[in-house]
């Protein structure tokens, strides 16, 4: 109880001030019959060294750092400059809450304003919010925006969207009578425009496309935007690998109305899937339908520039059930990390990181395509992930790789039964040429046997 700072004497004095005999007297409003009769059956208290030991023991059961991994699929290993950790660990960033009182929160507010600006610069959108939980829930919130803006019952979404994102959408929309219609992909691994044209009608509120898509392929956003707009639908792009925007044409230049994405690549470790960073940006005409916190610039009573939470009449604490979303707490600290990361990488550095991803993934693709028994599944432009098809069972191949300290890619069979021999591989700037060569070498040996 190292952080309970009252002495026995002080407790006595305080009880006297209140006018009760004991601390127990303060709980008289709780009926006796529901009071707990036993002590909680939980372990502890553990001292600091015991606590560290306890968790180090659990961590050692993971054994994951010993392996070379080629997993991506919505969670990407990237370099994190040390100063991202150094700065973000400051108590001034970790231990305030939502900046309800702007005069005492200018740090968080200005950084969030900078974050919103960086996201707008990357996406080419007019407005960004202060963050949402993660990429999957951001995509759902974007779809809900389209649903409210258009007041129409259907949402089209491509099957090349991350399968877990699509599952989350199903969970959310089930109770809201929103019809989700999936659009299949073609032999190039991109959304099938013919099927899209067949399925779209004037009941569609929005179309959601992922790019780079789940197979790593860069979708033809401009064409799809045109189709969406010709039917009066909102065009939404979801981007789990936001780093790609350092190289790829920004959605704002491709006719996109709303961008939802995952900012984990910007300074957040893999962390077994969370906390990550939901990103949501849109055209300015839709700002009043946006969920979540938004920071705006204003002035104080002396005319000095300052920042506040704004447009709060959209939010649950004012509008209650008529709010644009139920969200309250978001991922502010993760957005701070992303802002620091993007500042460190800067204009040139971020592009170099993205470029190394493309170069290394391309090198890996070339090396793997030389191996008998491996086929590059889709011939198309990709960012840092691509799909390979094996002549043998990819799960067996992964087991064999693991024996040599390698975690291969994600087997796609579970999500796409028709891709039963396929695996999604991810190469980023953290992979050295040697790592890629080691993967190729091992696959060669495995496939020969």
């Amino acid at each position, binding site marked *: 109880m190292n*952080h309970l700072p009252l*002495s026995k004497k002080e407790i006595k004095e305080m009880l006297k001030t209140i006018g009760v005999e004991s601390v127990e007297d303060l709980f008289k*409003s709780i009926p006796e019959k*529901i*009071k*707990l009769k036993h*002590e*909680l059956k*939980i372990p*502890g208290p*553990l*001292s600091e060294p015991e606590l560290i030991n306890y*968790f180090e023991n*659990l961590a050692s059961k*993971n*054994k*994951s*750092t010993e392996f070379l991994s080629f*997993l991506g699929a*919505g*969670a990407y290993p990237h370099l994190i400059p040390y100063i991202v950790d150094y700065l973000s660990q*400051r108590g001034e960033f*970790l231990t305030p*809450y*939502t900046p*309800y*009182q*702007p005069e*005492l*929160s200018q*740090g*968080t507010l200005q950084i969030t304003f900078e974050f919103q600006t960086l996201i707008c*610069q990357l996406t080419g959108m007019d407005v960004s919010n202060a963050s949402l*939980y*993660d990429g999957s829930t951001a995509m759902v919130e974007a779809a809900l925006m389209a649903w409210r803006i258009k007041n129409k019952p259907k949402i089209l979404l491509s099957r090349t969207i991350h399968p*877990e994102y699509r599952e*989350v959408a*199903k*969970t959310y929309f089930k*109770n809201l009578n929103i019809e989700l219609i999936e659009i299949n992909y073609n032999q190039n691994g991109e959304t099938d425009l013919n099927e899209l044209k067949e399925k779209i009608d004037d009941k569609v509120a929005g179309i959601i496309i992922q790019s780079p898509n789940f197979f790593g392929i860069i979708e033809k956003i401009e064409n799809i935007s045109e189709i969406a707009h010709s039917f009066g639908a909102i065009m939404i792009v979801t981007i789990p690998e936001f780093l790609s925007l350092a190289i*790829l044409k920004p959605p704002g230049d491709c006719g996109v109305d709303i961008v939802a994405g995952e900012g984990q690549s910007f300074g957040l470790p*893999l*962390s*077994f899937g*969370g906390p990550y960073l939901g990103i949501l940006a849109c055209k*300015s005409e839709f700002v009043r339908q946006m969920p979540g916190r938004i920071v705006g610039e204003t002035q*104080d*009573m*002396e005319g000095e520039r300052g920042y506040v939470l704004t*447009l709060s009449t959209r939010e649950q604490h004012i509008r209650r059930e008529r709010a644009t979303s*139920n969200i309250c*707490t978001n991922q502010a*600290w993760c957005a701070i990390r992303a802002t620091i990361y993007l*500042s*460190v990488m*800067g*204009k040139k550095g971020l592009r*170099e990181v993205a470029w190394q991803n493309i170069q290394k993934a391309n*090198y890996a693709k070339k090396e793997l395509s030389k191996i008998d028994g491996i086929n590059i599944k889709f011939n198309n432009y990709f960012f840092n992930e691509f799909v390979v098809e094996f002549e043998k069972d990819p799960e067996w191949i992964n087991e064999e790789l693991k024996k040599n300290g390698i*975690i291969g890619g994600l087997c796609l069979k579970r999500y796409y039964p028709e891709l039963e021999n396929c695996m999604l591989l991810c190469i980023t700037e953290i992979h050295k040429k040697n790592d890629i060569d080691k993967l190729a070498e091992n696959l060669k040996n495995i496939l020969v046997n």
Partner: protein
Amino acid sequence: MIKKEPLIFELSSEDKRAFQLPHLDVPAEKDILDKSIMREEIKGFPQLSENEIIRHFTRLSQMNYCVDIGLYPLGSCTMKYSPKINEKIALIPDFLNSHPYFPEELIQGNLEILKITEELLCEITGMDAFTLFPSAGAHGELTGMMIIRAYHDSKEERRKKVLIPDSAHGTNPASAHFSGYEIEEIPSNERGTVDVKKLKERINEDVAALMITNPNTLGVFEDEISEISEVLHSKGALLYMDGANLNALMGITRPREMGVDVIHLNLHKTFSTPHGGGGPGSGPVGVRDKLIDFLPIPRIEKKEGKYFLDYNRPKSIGRIRAFYGNFLVVIKALAYILSMGPEGLKRVSQIAVLNSNYIRKSLEKFYYLPYKSPTLHECVFSDKWQNEFGIKTLDIAKRLMDYGFHPPTIYFPLIVSGALMIEPTETESKQELDEFIQAMRKIAQEAKENPELLKSAPHKTPVRRLDEVRAARNLILKWSK
């Protein structure tokens, strides 16, 4: 104190850099991508050196108030101290570098952490099962309401309404709405608790659930909770508890004993994980037996000594976000629970309630207390007595900053006009509490003698009172040259 800092974009100039990438060690190729799908440089993106970046963010950090600096008595937010060792534990590389799709045998430690935390939260609340995946309290509410809906649906009952007391957090009605429900408000009685008579009038087979916060947002324990639970259950409806205020109850009573069917907790409140300026949080949801089948996928199970992720749950509401929630936040909460132990957690609740009552008693002659019922971990005053001098809650809050404190939650709960909702938590010293009390008393006096001082507050902060109306009217949501 730092008063001003330019935006990072205004500090930037061409050709500066703060990070050197390792040399590209594969043969570089041109024209990998078609020009038509590529962009030009990112216009306006910052370019600074490392030391400039350190200064920029350090200066900005100094414009933030935080728990590490002092009392942060936001009601219903439980701004307690976040133990530092828990941060270090969450940085262990085997947790940080763990990919969500690693093979199960390489994430046994992670799965064990999730399972142990679920079990400990079950013991603390008396619930039969927990999911740790909701990312924040409101996400937990949404998950909980979806579970309730799936439960009624499974019985082919199409219940349309959710009852919510008028003192509830705004997230409650919003979460119920996004689960497809209509909202009906239940008024509070003169004691500040749910009016059970009115509840009995409103309850029928169309009601899916009541969402209750206990202790409620006035800090008052809903002492008729058992009867409320019986009334609901007699019509087949469920009792949902918003666990935002669990910090008052640990080791003293449990939602199970109260007859609660579904609860969400906030690990960033009760279980000390840092609030991070507004997230990441974590909003685990606990349920009783009959609702376990509806919990989101995946579930963490154990077979032959090995943990695994179970997706074969046909009745589940489905997935509520990608992967497995805010895992690092869960680690910190588990570390907190283990470091406190059973006695420690009970002590936490006792001292949290003691501190709040000490503040209440010390201020009740200076500020109007609209509800006289006994309170637990928080108390709610109003600006009624200060209104006489033209002073509003906002003025009191802003003046408090000049005394070096973060203001309480203001203008909430909505049933109190001009509310000042104070939750000190257990991690404050008597000295800190006394200084806060002194400041509040002085402000009450200033309101009488020098109201202008309050109306023009704050005076000592990096910026003076900010014009929120202007921000909303003239939207500037990003920097431009």
